């Protein structure tokens, strides 16, 4: 047997064993209705293994190890997300408190509750606005800086990159106290601008890194080549450089937006009312009818709502995000 074939057979058996183990644990230990989840996952693995054994010959270039690995990755990444969705669909306290993974009495009541909640509506608006504005400012400033770093030769280039790196490692929580004090004096505590400014402290370094890595890959000579061919320098810049740079700028914007959308420390420290509270902070301040009653299912529903945009962006721009993350950090 060739090593390739041998490894395919081994991995097919591994898949079958994993599948049977899931099914066995499900039947022996997991109560209904969650049993079905275990059986479904088990079946998927068993089918993978059987398919690998039977028709693996037809597609010899597909490695069974990576197929099994991919299934494990998807299981790993999606389990908590699926749980959150299922928690958000549970109807009533009895259903929430019965434990278990799947809802007994599914419905969309929690989503209605959440959207009627003023704090959450305002938080969505605040987060969207604040994240978009700080992303725009930081990407514009970072584009200039990254262009200089990637294309020009100047004293202090290393200083610019080192500052960006140092600030990327900075413990932002150390800033909240002084900012809290300063913002109250300046009268911008609990305002959009009061959050946008500190957000720049972590979005700018990120954008500069991602963009300077991208810009280094751009063949800048093409601009001159176009000029030689008779284009004006503005035409050359617009027709040649902008289309090459735009994807990098867009990627930097997505990653920066993730950072701003994710912020929690500044959100809970520098805002206090619906005037500026962002989504992550609002999630932490949800309370039910009484202060002691944490509306778990409603928080789950709200969490799902704020995760949907992330999901959509990831699905649409997966390739770009991966390129941006890795080139920003590893390209040498």
């Amino acid at each position: 047997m060739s090593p390739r074939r041998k490894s395919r057979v081994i991995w097919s058996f591994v898949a079958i064993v994993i599948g049977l183990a899931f099914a066995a644990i499900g039947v022996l230990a997991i109560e209904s209705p969650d049993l079905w989840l275990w059986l479904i996952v088990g079946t998927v693995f068993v089918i993978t293994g059987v398919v690998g054994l039977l028709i693996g010959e037809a597609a010899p270039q597909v490695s069974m190890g990576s197929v099994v690995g991919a299934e494990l990755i998807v299981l790993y990444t999606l389990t908590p997300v699926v749980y959150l969705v299922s928690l958000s669909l549970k109807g009533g306290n009895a259903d929430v408190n019965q434990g278990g993974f799947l809802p007994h009495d599914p419905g969309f009541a929690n989503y209605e509750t959440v959207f009627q909640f003023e704090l959450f509506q305002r938080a969505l608006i605040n987060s969207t606005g604040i994240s978009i504005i700080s992303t725009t400012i930081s990407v514009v400033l970072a584009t200039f800086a990254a262009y200089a770093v990637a294309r020009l030769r100047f004293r202090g280039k290393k200083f610019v990159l080192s500052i960006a790196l140092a600030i990327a490692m900075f413990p932002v929580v150390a800033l909240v106290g002084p900012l809290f004090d300063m913002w109250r004096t300046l009268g911008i505590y609990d305002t959009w601008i009061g959050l946008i400014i500190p957000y720049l402290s972590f979005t700018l370094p990120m954008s500069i890194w991602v963009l300077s890595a991208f810009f280094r890959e751009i063949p800048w000579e093409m601009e001159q080549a176009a000029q030689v061919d008779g284009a004006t320098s503005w035409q050359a810049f617009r027709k040649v450089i902008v289309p090459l740079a735009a994807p990098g700028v867009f990627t930097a914007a997505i990653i920066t937006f993730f950072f701003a959308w994710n912020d929690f420390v500044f959100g809970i420290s520098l805002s206090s009312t619906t005037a500026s509270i962002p989504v992550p902070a609002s999630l932490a301040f949800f309370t039910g009818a009484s202060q002691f009653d944490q509306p778990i299912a409603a928080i789950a529903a709200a969490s799902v709502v704020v995760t949907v945009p992330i999901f959509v962006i990831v699905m649409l721009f997966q390739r770009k995000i991966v390129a941006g993350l890795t080139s920003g950090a590893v390209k040498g």
Partner: protein
Amino acid sequence: MASTTAAPGRRVKTRERTPEAAENRLAWKLAGPAVAVMLLVTAWPMLRALYLSLFSYRLTAPDDREWVGLTNYWVVLSDPLWWRAVFVAVFIMVVTVSVELVIGFGFAMVMNSILVARGLVRSSILVPYGIITVVSAYAWLYAFQPTTGFVNQWLHLDPSTTPFDNFWGSIMVICLAEIWKTTPFISLLLLAGLSQVPNDAVEAATVDGATWWQRLYKVILPSMRAAIMVAVLFRALDAYRIFDSPFIMTGFANGTAPPSGLVYNAMIQRVELGLGSAMSVLLFLSVLVVAFGLMKAFRVDLSQVRGE
């Protein structure tokens, strides 16, 4: 890799009619605003923290503000609570980063060799990366709570037990949530590192009869050194600064407060600006120590990895 991206600056230099001084000025005009903003939003508050840390100053009693010199630092450094927080952060850092390296490497290997459903796997890897940390913390908190969660039920644990009533249980769930959320980031960096492994070297080793382990240790891992280093450095510092997950899961109860939690409590909850500022400065210094220690351990200048 440095050769493929060899400094574009050199090409610029040979271009005609560009006096160096003019280029220098232009560069600073372009980069200046970003640098100014970065310094303004970090250096300025940090200097202010340095100044405030020398006072006994509570926001609720601003008239009692009094110069106390280094007393605040002494108060913090002689408090076992601070050292416990440092221990918590270092513990979380060591556990999460080492587990993430192992799982992340496995993921990277899969993504590197997969041919079918590549986009699907990469998209699903990006979901934990993109999700809000607070949301991920809630998912894990509820999963492990005995009433709402499935973990107790699936494992048939006593319904009256919860990991959140003791230190180790809470830390374990916090670590799990962190690992789940940030492994994708590490795996993507390692994937980029894997793509830099010279294929012919691996094949040559195979031809010479090296086993899988030998190839991994002698060829693959050494050529991924830069990627591994960057991943460890970034993640370790991130883990040391941990705040969101313990805030949501335990509210810093059961001694699970990391230094950033103590800073937040002192500054925002108790508005002790003097003491809190001293903690901020100490947190900043300890991050520097961790960063410096890691760079020393790797014996690499990060700016060189960047090809500068």
